[in-house]
């Protein structure tokens, strides 16, 4: 009885209509092209990401509806995806989205101090946005960088090997409009061992291993 193209009711008016820019239209079709012809729904996450980037980091209802229509999916199926992943935002967010991992490995390595530093430096609590619209603070589950725990993600970059002080320095840089270097904040290369190599250090001729 009700068609699939009913305009969404909540917040639709403030948000205004949504449509991909020309450049994003091309990108969208490229993403859809990665999947078999009758499997265009597979592109839903790519397109939502595209839409979110185009719309200052969040997805208003018209954008969700737009993506649904673009992929010929019922809106609820797209909405399920949006609500499942913490990377999609249904409310406006700050320019820098600070996501603090508090899952067990990070927590064991001091994520509580990192989170406190964020609260203190930014002056906001979890799921809040600073008044100037620069920062949004959220808590997330494991982001898969446990080797360099604790870590936070700011927009597309990981910042690792943090503690309270380093977190504060990092955020202060961002506040000034600088671009801190992503990756380990202690200068270690990728996920290399903290205290130098511990394995495969003897010559190839040596038979057997010497423990860890």
């Amino acid at each position, binding site marked *: *009885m*009700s*068609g*699939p193209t*009913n305009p*969404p*009711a*909540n917040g639709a008016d403030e948000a205004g209509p949504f449509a991909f820019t020309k450049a994003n239209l091309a990108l969208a079709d490229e993403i859809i092209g990665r999947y078999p012809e009758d499997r265009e729904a597979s592109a839903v996450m790519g397109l939502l990401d595209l839409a979110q980037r185009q719309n200052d980091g969040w997805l208003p*209802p018209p954008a*969700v509806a737009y993506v649904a229509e673009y992929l010929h999916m*019922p*809106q*609820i*199926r797209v*909405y*399920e995806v949006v*609500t*499942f992943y913490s990377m999609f935002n249904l409310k406006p967010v700050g320019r820098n989205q600070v996501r603090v991992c508090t899952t067990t490995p990070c927590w064991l390595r001091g994520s509580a101090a990192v989170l406190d530093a964020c609260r203190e430096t930014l002056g906001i609590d979890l799921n809040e946005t600073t008044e100037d619209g620069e920062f949004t603070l959220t808590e997330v589950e494991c982001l898969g960088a446990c080797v360099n725990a604790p870590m936070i993600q700011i927009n597309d970059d990981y910042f690792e090997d943090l503690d309270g002080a380093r977190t504060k320095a990092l955020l202060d840089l961002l506040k000034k409009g600088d671009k801190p270097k992503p990756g380990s904040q202690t200068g270690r290369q990728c996920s290399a061992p903290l205290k130098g190599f511990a394995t495969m250090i003897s010559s190839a001729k040596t038979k057997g291993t010497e423990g860890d």
Partner: protein
Amino acid sequence: MPKLTIDGVEVEVEPGITVLQACETAGVEIPRFCYHERLSIAGNCRMCLVEMEKSPKPIASCAMPVAEGMVIRTDSEMAVKARRGVMEFLLINHPLDCPICDQGGECDLQDQALFYGFDRTRFEEAKRSVKEKDFGPLIQTFMTRCIHCTRCVRFATEIAGVEELGLTGRGEDVEIGTYIEKALVSELSGNMIDLCPVGALTSKPYAFTARSWELTKTESIDALDAVGSAIRVDSRGGEVMRVLPRLNEAVNEEWISDKTRFAYDGLRRQRLDRPYVRRDGKLEEASWDQAFAAIAGQLEDAPGRRIAAIAGDLADCESMLALKDLMAALGSVHTDCRQDGARIEAGERAGYIFNTTIAGIERADACLLIGTDPRFEAPLINARLRKRYLAGGFSVGFVGPEVDLTYRAEPLGAGPKTLGEIAAGEHPFAAVLDDAAHPMLIVGQGALARPDGARVLATARRIAEETGMIGDGWNGFNVLHLAAARVGGLDIGFVPGEGGLDVAAILEAAGSGGLDAVYLLGADEIDMAALADTFVIYQGHHGDAGAEAADVILPGAAYTEKDATYVNTEGRAQHGRLAVFPPGEAREDWKIIRALSGVLGRTLPYDDIGALRARMIEVNRIFAAPDEARPAEWGAFGTPGPMDPAPFAYPLENFYMTDPITRASMTMAECTALARSANKDKTGTDG
């Protein structure tokens, strides 16, 4: 065929089935919440865990296909412990409010908790609570009770074809809901109440009115459309408390439409519970004797040719036959059961039934719909068409106004012109039908209840014959009826006899003073103004249009109040059963006619329902085989000739209100209002 061992017993099962199904064939019942035979497999409740040899962990039996040599244990310590664990998790957020929950007593979770539940809680955190959702006027939600089995989501998506429900959020925040908060509108929504294994979705009209264990359950047949769904009428103290579906694979599987399920409150309102006689222009209460005397006085001197009878859409076969016999005894041949003026003759049975049968739809591979919107005219036939569509390789085309059937259907044209082209083989869809191994067509009342209906019927017959719909073991020609009484009426022969008048002619004759009396057997959908100057006898159960126009009212029984036979659109004769007694002075319909025949001095020769049913079999052999849809011989029907080019129009203005019972129902009125506002939203005229 794979062999596996279940609890030490070796069984051989069909390949491709799941372990859970294999256990069932071995007679072991596995507890489950999310698994349902008619829905896709979700595997998310984990209640069906069993132990499989060589697997370190228990497996979800609903999602595991059987394989050769599997050794399954359903009662081992591991399996039972796993289920206990699952149950404990399910109960973490489930409120312990069984005493105030309508599902109590028929709740899967309650039953399983008895076997696998833990007697105290180890969860000391706060239980979550979830906001209620708007599922319309039929479904009450208590979303805090939801265990996220997603049966309702899968039902809405797969069976009902309204992709509006989903599972949003994740982890502890997961919820069932619609995208934008709006009422869910589906003609099959009530089935989600049955599917819900807990008390999250319960019936709103039934809320807090009865407990399942105090209800008397009567197996019966629905009469509110021509599908003839198998129903169970639950009653208490002479009142119908609710209507539930009953399993009938051939007809309704295990679903019923919302009209069938929720119109029962109409059975309590606007009832005719005593006879009435019009005196000085006013209907006054009367005794049966007075009512019969008034009729006898009017009919005494009336010649048979000046008496007519019209049977309504809810009439049962017994009363129609009794009335037909009475009319014959009075010398009248003016009988008709086609209130809407459908141009269908009683002669060739294949020309007025759904020959393919509802289950037969699953064998079809192309379907042409002519002037019918099965989604609302027969929701369960539409559900079967959708089921067939989802199986793949099924092309559907329709001739008539634009319509949303919940599956892809090609609009072919608006009316007879397109139909003529298909018959002549000039339309591309003719080739689709030609190429199909089992093509079928469904012609609806929107195409037949018009002056050129017989010609439309003939054209449909031509299409059937020329595209190979009639063959060995396959008959693809189908007529979709709207009224439960219609096929039975045609089978009984409740149509004008030699030189008799049909409904339109009866009304015309009555309007011009050509009739002395018209007997309306529950007929309410005709133009009563034409009967203003004629003596009208109305026999029925609701104070609707017919009762208003009547001079004598004989209070009859509704379909839940009598043992009666209805023939569904497939030509399947089925017995409805008395669940509660008719209210007040009202009586079973055939008995009223039998009693009246005595007063009129033309006593009908049957004293009990057995004798009457023997007479029915004498009239038509199909009544000898109840519950069967016997194939009908193909023959000539319809009248070839040019059709009126006017496009077809669908007959149902409002799915929820089609007869006196549904018109008296408050629930149906609410559904109507909601459907109207939903339609308005669509056009953007209403905020």
